[in-house]
C-alpha cells in the first residue's frame, strides 16, 4: 500500500544524526507504465534493509532512483539532511553492487577496487585497497582480471569496489542472483558479516524471500510498484497484512470466512468448513459482524489427525475437515495437501517424528491448529496474490501471473532498449532459471524447517 510511512521502532541505531535515507513520494513512470507508484520510505542509518518483490515490481527502479541512475518522475530522495534528488550519480555518497557486477573488464581486481578512490583523488590508495581485498578475502587475486575469477569472487570484488568508498548507503541489486545455491547461502552470511563490521546502511533488492528474511533487519515487500508491507522479517511472516505478503513470504493457507461474532479479544468466523477463532489482535481488517475475511494459517503450524481420532484433539483448537489429496515425502518432513469444504489444497507440513502410515492420499483427516496462530485479512483482495507458481501449466491460467510477467517483460524491454544488449535477455533468463531452482529448494527447506 502506498500509504506506508515511517519505519519506526526498527533495529536502527539511535544515532539520529540524520544519516537516514528518506524517500518522499518518489515514483517513476515510463510512458503509460507506472514502474513505481509514489512511495514514502525511511531507511534508518546503519540498518540492513531489503526491498523484496517479484521481478517487475519496481524494486530495482526504486534502488536506481536512490543511486541516481534513474531520475524519479515525482518525489525526492534525501540522504540525511541532503536532498540528492537532482544530483548525478557521481556526486552522491552512495555506491551500488550491480546485479551482474559490472566489473571493468579491462582493469584488474586491484584497479577495479581502486577506481572510486582514484576518481576522488584519494592518496594512499594502495593500503586501502589491500585492506579491502583482505576483508573480502581476495588479497591473492589483486592482479587477476575479472574474467579470471569465479562468480563468487567477482561478486566479492563488486562488494569491495563499492564498500571501499565508505558510502553512506550501499545499494545491492540482486547481488547474489547469478550464484549457485550453496555459494549464495555463504555469501548471504558473508554480506551480513560485512554489514555488521562496517556499519553502513545496506539496501538490498531481492526477489528471494528467504534471502531477505535471512539478511535484513527490515523488509519492505513490494508488489506492482507499491510497498505492500514493511517490517521485521519475523513480524512480516507472522502477521502478513495482505494476501500478497501472506503468499509471497512462505506459504499461507487462506480460507474465506464471514465474521459471526466478536467477543473477548477473539473473533469467531464461519467458513464453509465450520467455525474458526481468530485473535482480534491478528486481524488487519474491519471485523464487524457479517464482515468478510480471509482467515490464514501457516502450514507448519498445522497438525493432521485422522478423522476417526478427531476426539483426541484438545478443545479450543481451530479445526477443518478434509481428504488428503497429495502427500510428498521430503525426508525431514512430509508435505500434505488437503481438500475439504473449507478450501482446496490446504498445506500441512509435518515433521517426520512419528510418521503415521495411515496418512495417505484419500484418508479422511482433520487439520487443526492453535487459534493463536490464526490471522485474518481483508477479503476484498485476490486470494491468489503472490502465490509462486511452480507448474508452468497453472501459471498460464493465472491471470495475475500473466500480468506480472507482462510487467516484467515491459521493464526488461525498456531496459533493453536503453542497453541495446542481447546478452541481457540471456542473463535475465539465466537468473530466472536460477530462481526456479531456488524456489523449489526453498520450499523443500521450508517444509523441512
Amino acid at each position, binding site marked *: 500500500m502506498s500509504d506506508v510511512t515511517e519505519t519506526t521502532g526498527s533495529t536502527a541505531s539511535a544515532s539520529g544524526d540524520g544519516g537516514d535515507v528518506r524517500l518522499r513520494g518518489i515514483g517513476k513512470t515510463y510512458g503509460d507504465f507506472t514502474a513505481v507508484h509514489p512511495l514514502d520510505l525511511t531507511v534508518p542509518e546503519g540498518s540492513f534493509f531489503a526491498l523484496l518483490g517479484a521481478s517487475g515490481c519496481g524494486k530495482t527502479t526504486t534502488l536506481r532512483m536512490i543511486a541516481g541512475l534513474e531520475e524519479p518522475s515525482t518525489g525526492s530522495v534525501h540522504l540525511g539532511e541532503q536532498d540528492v534528488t537532482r544530483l548525478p550519480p557521481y556526486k552522491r555518497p552512495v555506491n*551500488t553492487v550491480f546485479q*551482474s557486477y559490472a566489473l571493468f573488464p579491462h582493469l584488474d581486481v586491484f584497479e577495479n577496487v581502486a577506481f572510486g578512490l582514484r576518481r576522488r583523488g584519494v592518496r594512499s590508495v594502495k593500503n586501502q585497497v589491500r585492506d579491502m581485498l583482505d576483508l573480502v578475502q581476495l588479497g591473492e587475486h589483486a592482479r587477476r582480471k575479472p574474467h579470471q575469477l569465479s562468480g563468487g569472487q567477482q561478486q566479492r570484488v563488486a562488494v569491495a569496489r563499492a564498500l571501499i*568508498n565508505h558510502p553512506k548507503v550501499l545499494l545491492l541489486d540482486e547481488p547474489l542472483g547469478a550464484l549457485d545455491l550453496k555459494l549464495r547461502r555463504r555469501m548471504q552470511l558473508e554480506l551480513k558479516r560485512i554489514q555488521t563490521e562496517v556499519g553502513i546502511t545496506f539496501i538490498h533488492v531481492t526477489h528471494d524471500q528467504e534471502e531477505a528474511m535471512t539478511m535484513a533487519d527490515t523488509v519492505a515487500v513490494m508488489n506492482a510498484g507499491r510497498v505492500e508491507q514493511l517490517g521485521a522479517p519475523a513480524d512480516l511472516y507472522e502477521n502478513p497484512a495482505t494476501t500478497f505478503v501472506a503468499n509471497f513470504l512462505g506459504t499461507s493457507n487462506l480460507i474465506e470466512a464471514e465474521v459471526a461474532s466478536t467477543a473477548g479479544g477473539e473473533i469467531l468466523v464461519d467458513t464453509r468448513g465450520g467455525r474458526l477463532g481468530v485473535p482480534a489482535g491478528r486481524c488487519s481488517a474491519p471485523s464487524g459482524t457479517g464482515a468478510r475475511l480471509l482467515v490464514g494459517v501457516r502450514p507448519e503450524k498445522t497438525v493432521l489427525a485422522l478423522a476417526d481420532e478427531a476426539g483426541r484433539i484438545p478443545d479450543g483448537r481451530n479445526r477443518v475437515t478434509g481428504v488428503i489429496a497429495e502427500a510428498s515425502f521430503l525426508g525431514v518432513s512430509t508435505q500434505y495437501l488437503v481438500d475439504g469444504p473449507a478450501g482446496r489444497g490446504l498445506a500441512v507440513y509435518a515433521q517426520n517424528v512419528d510418521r503415521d502410515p495411515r496418512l495417505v492420499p484419500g484418508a479422511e483427516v482433520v487439520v487443526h491448529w492453535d487459534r493463536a496462530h490464526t490471522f485474518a485479512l481483508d477479503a476484498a483482495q485476490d486470494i491468489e496474490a503472490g502465490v509462486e507458481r511452480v507448474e508452468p501449466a497453472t501459471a498460464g491460467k493465472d491471470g495475475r501471473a500473466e500480468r506480472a510477467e507482462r510487467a516484467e517483460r515491459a521493464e526488461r524491454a525498456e531496459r533493453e532498449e536503453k*542497453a541495446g544488449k542481447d546478452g541481457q535477455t540471456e542473463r535475465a533468463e539465466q537468473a530466472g532459471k536460477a530462481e526456479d531452482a531456488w524456489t523449489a529448494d526453498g520450499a523443500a527447506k521450508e517444509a523441512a524447517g
Partner: protein
Amino acid sequence: MSSATLTGTPPPPPPATPAAARRTTPRRRRGRLTPYLLLLPGLLWLLVFFALPVIYQASTSVQTGSLEAGYEVTWRFATYTEALADYWPHFLRSVVYAGTATVLCLLLGYPLAYLIAFRAGRWRNLIMILVIAPFFTSFLIRTLAWKTILADGGVVVETLNTLHVLDVTAGLGLTDGERLLATPLAVVCGLTYNFLPFMILPLYTSLERIDPRLHEAAADLYARPATVFRRVTLPLSMPGVVAGTLLTFIPAGGDYVNADLLGSTDTRMIGNVIQVQFLRVLDYPTAAALSFILMAVILVVVSVHIRRSGTEDLV
C-alpha cells in the same frame, strides 16, 4: 604474412573423391580430415591470388632487362635502393596523407559510432544504412563527384573563400591560393571520405559490445561523464580503434585514385608512382620493388601502432 601460414600448415591431404573416401576410410578418419578439407578452398584461393602473385612480383623486383629484350632474374637489389632514393618523398607523402586521413576519420567516426551504439535508439539501423549507403555507388564515381564538389568557383570554394578559410589553409601549405582542387587538402579530404565507413564499422562493433552498465558503474564510482569516457569507454573500444585505423590507413596508404582525381603532380602518392611505373613507364622491376617497399613501410607502421596501443592486453 599469409604466405608463412601457407608454408606452416601441414601438407593438404590427398584430395579424395567423397565416394572413394566413403568406401576406403572409416568414419573416424574422415572426421579428422574435415577441418583440412574445409581449409582447402581458402588455401587454394590464397595460393593462386596471393602467394603466387607475391612470389612473381618478388622475382620481378630483382630482374633486369628491357621490355624489348625481355627480363631475367639477376638478383639486382640495387633496384630497391634506387627506387627508395628516387621516390622517398612519395613514400613520406603517402604516410603523411594516409595518417592525416586516418586521424580525421577517427575524429569524425568515433562520435558517430558512439552515437549509433549508445544514443541512436530506434534510429540505429537507419544511421547504419546511411553509413554504408555510399558503397552502393562506385568508388570512382564518388571520387569524381568530389571533383565537382571541390571544383574552382563551386559553392564550397566560394563559401570557404568568403569565410577566408582558404587563406588560413594556404598559410599552412594545405591549399594553393584560392583553389581547393589539386591541393593536398583535397586529397586528404577524398581519402577521409572514402575510408570513413571502414573506421566507423569496427568502432561501432566494439562500442556496441560495451555493457552500458559499466558506464553506470563508473558514474556510481564518482567518475564524471568525461572520466567515464576516458577510463572506461575509450579503453574498452581500443580494439575497434586499432581495427578501424588499420582498415583506414592500409588502403589509404596504397591509394592512388584520390591523388589522381583530386590532386596534382605535387600531391602524387606512392600508389600513383607504382601505377605509372607499371602501366606507362613499363619499368616492372622498379614498380615491383616500390610495391615491396610500400608493404614493408605499412608493416612497420602497423606493428608499431599495434604495439603502442597494447591491444593484445584487451579482452
